[in-house]
């Protein structure tokens, strides 16, 4: 059993390596799908987290000059791996809090099985599934990216502001689109609008004429369309235009693709379709701070969720500073205090300023690169959305939705 002996030696070596944190080092778990299906995206997200950590450490560090140390754990976008990674971070590394993981599934597994029972605060940068809002999490699960459901509210506001009072709704019968549609209907009615018809449709049908002619009754001014462009969205727009049933369309990001213009024609869509999308406001001062630092480090600041990655690491540092100790039980409450909406605005890179404000006992309101991080009761943020219309050049033209 020579092999077993070697294994025993390896195991004891591992145990010795991992005894306790070094003095003056505060560990934060950095879980992410380093391997697995979204590994390329995660590389940029992790880079964002690292840059935020460097900003913290090179501007005075945490508390009394302690360094913030991110401990990487591979959640592989797989709930099995994420639970294992979470167990190591919480129990072996004894981290103060965890940022990540990347995928909604990995987040769901890790928080349900590990961190909620252990009372460790998790702040995810890219999990967007609505089911995470509903977890009974003792206020320990937060995220810096908007739940998909928020887009429904954003669209409702946009339609109402455009002066449309009566709309018909149709959605592809899947979790994502149904979720957005439900929120849209609720919010639009709350604003005072009227929903003349609301019908689910099955994707991949050859024609939607009968559904659309039913929906066109009652005098709707526009169609709110929640579908994927490929499986039903393009067909619905085509059928509507061909038969003169609907002329104006409001849609969520499932409809955003070049092929929509390609197949329906820019002339037909110009001034007739508005498609929302989750986005960062590239004109915002916070984003510019982040983008400059990210570019200087050799990255592309427009990489998906890289800005969110920066924000979660910075927020976690602020929460530790606010809590005044590397105490995992205090992070959740502290996180709410540094995220706003009240207090003096702190932007990416302004660690020294934030540290001073907290030392002086003033309130801090971190406005992140990816948007304001005012957490609601579920620990969610509303996020920022852009709207895409067909521009003069016949391509999509994007502007921020305010």
């Amino acid at each position: 059993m020579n092999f077993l002996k070697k294994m025993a030696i390896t195991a004891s070596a591992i145990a010795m390596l991992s005894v306790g944190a070094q003095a003056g080092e505060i560990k934060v778990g950095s879980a992410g799908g380093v391997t697995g299906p979204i590994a390329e995206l995660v590389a940029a997200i992790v880079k964002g987290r690292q840059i935020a950590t460097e900003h913290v450490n090179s501007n005075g560090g945490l508390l009394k000059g302690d360094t913030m140390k991110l401990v990487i754990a591979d959640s592989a976008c797989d709930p099995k791996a994420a639970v294992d990674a979470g167990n190591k971070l919480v129990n072996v590394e004894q981290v103060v809090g965890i940022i990540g993981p990347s995928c909604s599934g990995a987040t769901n597994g890790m928080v349900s099985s590990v961190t909620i029972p252990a009372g460790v605060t998790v702040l995810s940068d890219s999990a967007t599934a609505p089911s995470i809002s509903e977890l009974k999490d003792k206020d320990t699960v937060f995220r810096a990216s908007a739940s998909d459901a928020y887009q429904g509210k954003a669209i409702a506001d946009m339609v109402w502001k455009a002066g449309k009072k009566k709309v018909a709704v149709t959605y592809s019968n899947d979790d994502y689109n149904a979720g957005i549609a439900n929120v849209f209907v609720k919010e639009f009615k709350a604003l005072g609008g009227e929903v003349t018809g609301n019908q689910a449709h099955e994707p991949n049908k050859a024609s939607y004429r009968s559904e659309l002619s039913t929906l066109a009754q009652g005098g709707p001014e526009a169609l709110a369309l929640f579908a994927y462009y490929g499986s039903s969205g393009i067909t619905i727009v085509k059928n509507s235009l061909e038969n003169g049933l609907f002329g104006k369309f409001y849609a969520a990001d499932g409809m955003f693709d070049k092929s929509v213009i390609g197949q329906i024609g820019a002339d037909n869509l110009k001034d007739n379709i508005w498609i929302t999308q989750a986005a960062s406001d590239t004109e915002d001062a916070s984003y510019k701070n982040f983008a400059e630092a990210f570019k200087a480090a050799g990255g592309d600041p427009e990489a998906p969720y890289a800005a969110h990655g920066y924000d979660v690491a910075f927020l976690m540092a602020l929460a530790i500073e606010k809590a005044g100790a590397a105490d995992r039980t205090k992070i959740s409450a502290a996180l709410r205090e540094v995220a706003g909406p009240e207090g003096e605005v702190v932007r990416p890179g302004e660690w020294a300023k934030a540290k001073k404000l907290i030392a002086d006992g003033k309130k801090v309101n971190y406005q992140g690169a990816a948007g304001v991080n005012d957490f609601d009761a579920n620990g969610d943020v509303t996020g920022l959305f852009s709207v895409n219309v067909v521009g003069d050049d016949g391509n999509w033209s994007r502007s921020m939705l305010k």
Partner: protein
Amino acid sequence: MDALYGYMLYGISLATMGGIYAVLTLGLNVQWGFAGLFNAGIAGFFGIGAYTTAILTTSATHRHIGGFEMPYIVGFLAAMLICGVIAYLVGKVCLRLRSDYLAIATIGIAEIFRLILKNETWATNGPRGVSEIPKPFEHWPEPWNQFGFLLLVLVVVAIVYVLVEVARKSPWGRVMTAIRENEPSAKAAGKNVENFRMEGFVIGCMIMALAGALMAHYLKFVDPNATDPLLATFLVWVMLIVGGSANNKGAILGAFLMWVVWSATEIVTSRLPDELAIRAAYIRIFLIGLMLQIFLQKFPQGILPEKRPDVAKSNGNAETKMAD
């Protein structure tokens, strides 16, 4: 934040995952170790078990079918039963294939299952997965709930081990070995080879489904990524080969050992500088492949080689009762 307490909790999680993998590996041992069936679609059967119990035991939600709120035991039994039926149908189509072709066919079948779970959104919530699965003992205080679940897993491992061990020593097990070693001579001895292979395949798949069900309750969440072949098929193969195929103790040893290697290596790699730590995540995968190579080439029988049951003790009556 007591470090020792933390290590103990981590130890519990290692043992729990190791135990679930031990059940999976025992299932594979029935197929490969006993009957010589090369099943490369473990993840598929594992996924069926996980989703079955997930849907049966969760409370009502608008995300997927369900709201049955069945007791755990119903979830476990239904997972095994449904997987058994599906395995029978798969076996009808695939089992006549020779070993390497069977491997290709089962990879394909596992992929089909994964795509069904991903796309039949009305039933499974598609890529978003099934969340808020209840976990046995979860209302007990820490750390007793974790101990409770570990105990449940270990009890399941023990029951499966005893049953599989009895089967191995029985005439049924010896027919299996005969088929594995020399199919024409088993046939010549009047054994219905196809039936025996089917039995081995179905029983193995049912055990895999049981492991899937345990995993679903442990994670409290399943999604199609949980049936990713790396951690649900190939790792299981490595566990069996390293532990010793056709030896049930070896299967269990291999499962615990490889899970500890897989999980604990990250504690070392996470101490590297960030850039290296990210790359080291891939080295862990490489390490698993390397171990498989070393064992296949240097110790093809694994740590605990196969031990044939003692023929002298069990001749006589048992032979005449042997099923054909």
